[in-house]
């Protein structure tokens, strides 16, 4: 299945693809953690992730055409 990924706020430079937004083919019943692994985001840092506009976690399972947005874990303003 295909999912859509957005890397917010300059995060793309920490991925192997270096793209702000991309579509990714993943096996059925993949979760967000699998996507993070494909992108090769450094595992030392926690990420804030939304799935179709709601907060989601690494273990959240994906459905076709899901939209995932990954943010750096911001501390505040």
């Amino acid at each position, binding site marked *: 299945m295909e999912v859509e990924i957005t890397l*917010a*706020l*300059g995060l793309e430079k920490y991925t192997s693809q270096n793209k702000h937004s991309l579509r990714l083919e993943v096996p059925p019943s993949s979760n967000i953690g699998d996507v993070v692994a494909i992108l090769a985001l450094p595992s030392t*840092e*926690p990420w804030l992730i939304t799935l179709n*506009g709601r907060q989601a976690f690494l273990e959240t399972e994906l459905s076709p055409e899901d939209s995932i947005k990954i*943010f750096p874990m911001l*501390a*505040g*303003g």
Partner: protein
Amino acid sequence: MKKILRVNMANQTIIEDRLPEEYLGLGGRALIARMLLNEIPPACEPLGRHNKLIFAPGLLGGSKVFSSGRISIGGKSPLTGGIKESNGGGTVGLKLGRLGYSAVVVEELTPPGKSFCLKITQNGAELLDASEYWGLGVYDATAKLRERFGKQIAVSCIGPAGEMRLTGAGVANTDTDGVPSRYCGRGGLGALMGSKRLKAVVIDDTGSKFIEPAKPDELTMLMKLYSQYVEESPVINSYKSYGTASMVMLNNALGGLPTRNFSEGSFEGAEKISGEKMHDIIVARKGKLAHACMPGCPMRCSNVYVDEQGEPIVAPLEYETIALMGSNLGIDDLDAIARLNYWCNDLGLDTIETGAALGVAMESGWLSFGDAEGAIKLMEEIGKGTIAGRVIAMGADTTSKVLGMVKRPVVKGQAMAGYDPRSIKGTGVTYATSPMGADHTAGATPRANIKHTSPEGQADLSKKVQNTIPIYDDLGLCMVAGAALGAHLDLVAQIVSAQLGINYNVDDLFEMTGKTLKWEVEFNRRAGFTNLDDRIPEYFCEVPCPTVNTVFDVSDQDLDGVHA
């Protein structure tokens, strides 16, 4: 030698002394908490003669440690009636620290008809007549002071709102460019400074040097590591490009972006007021990104937001202002938000408190959501000192009471910041239980890896963050550095050891923060606060935030456990 300066406004005597033994080893927020508990009657009138206004750099103030020059200002809050410490960036903390001061304590009240500036140099301090500055906006007053005393000075200054003793007033501090827009904004400390009729503190550190570290080679090595952690941090990388406004789209996605007086948690115009949009506008108009508010800051989260002609409107434009004066007012135009920010800065007002007050006013029907022109007209009313203007400048609590609004986005009388407590519940716990009142800087939790809409674990999370944040506030370090240093607190302890020549470890850091909070909670208890003051207002506990479809439902028992 660490020094303390006591300034008596009643008879204009100034006494310089060694820092008393019981205050040694304390700085910034910790020193303020201890001094207020020791020295002022907790039940005193905040605007009366018994209250004291304290300026305290952190323990590392005046050193070469990166971003360690924050200035803490404190006193009994005219807004909350409780203890207050509010800290800001710029150069005031650095210069006071370089001059060797741990604290400047302003006591008693000026006789009627007079007003003063406090000038501090290497040769001591003096009170100067301020009648030519009284009544001026913050920008004009600072420009005149810099004209008279030179561009090397740092200034802490109030505007007309502080002079009128309005509880939404803060204290402005100058940055590396001499621009007075680094605010100790919260808690109405501008009103406290106004009650003393102290227009400004002018600091000229000519002839002074950085405080030398006890172990210079070690500190140099530790600073390299500090830089490396900053350089590697994706969070700080994002702040450099997008400023703290990075938070807009993230918080919008979490359903925590205050929208139309906290009616919703996401805003249809969020992209138009986002950090990404701000970045593009600043680049196109040739403003400044990655601006440093303190000399030598490696994070550089600040910016100069300019108009279409490239002229500065305001510096910096920050997340909390964008949330409270943008989405919270239904305004989706960064230029309009920047202009409102400028007005607040010039009048000497906290943008969070004022934005929240305007949100209440808009919901009441006084003006419409999205009416930026109407909001600016109200800012003009504040400048003129009309009753309508004063109501807004008293903050969200007073405004809601005057207008008969049941929905009050406040705790302990202080407005909530840019996080809806129903959507980011850990920050809701901080709003409820912090001795400071609703204050994100006392323990913001969006960074935690937790389901933010669940009530589970939020009290423990908030407790942990509330106990960590004073590390930065006590040392004078910038909270933004926490994004890089938070995972390396051993490095922070080593920096303290190398700078001060004492043997400090992570446990010592937490012992200090534990005391800070204990003293603050105790001050509030003596001032009459009970656990019933540690609650989120009824509206947020009964009406769900439609974006996340949940109310604030952390139990009273959990809230009462935070400082137990």
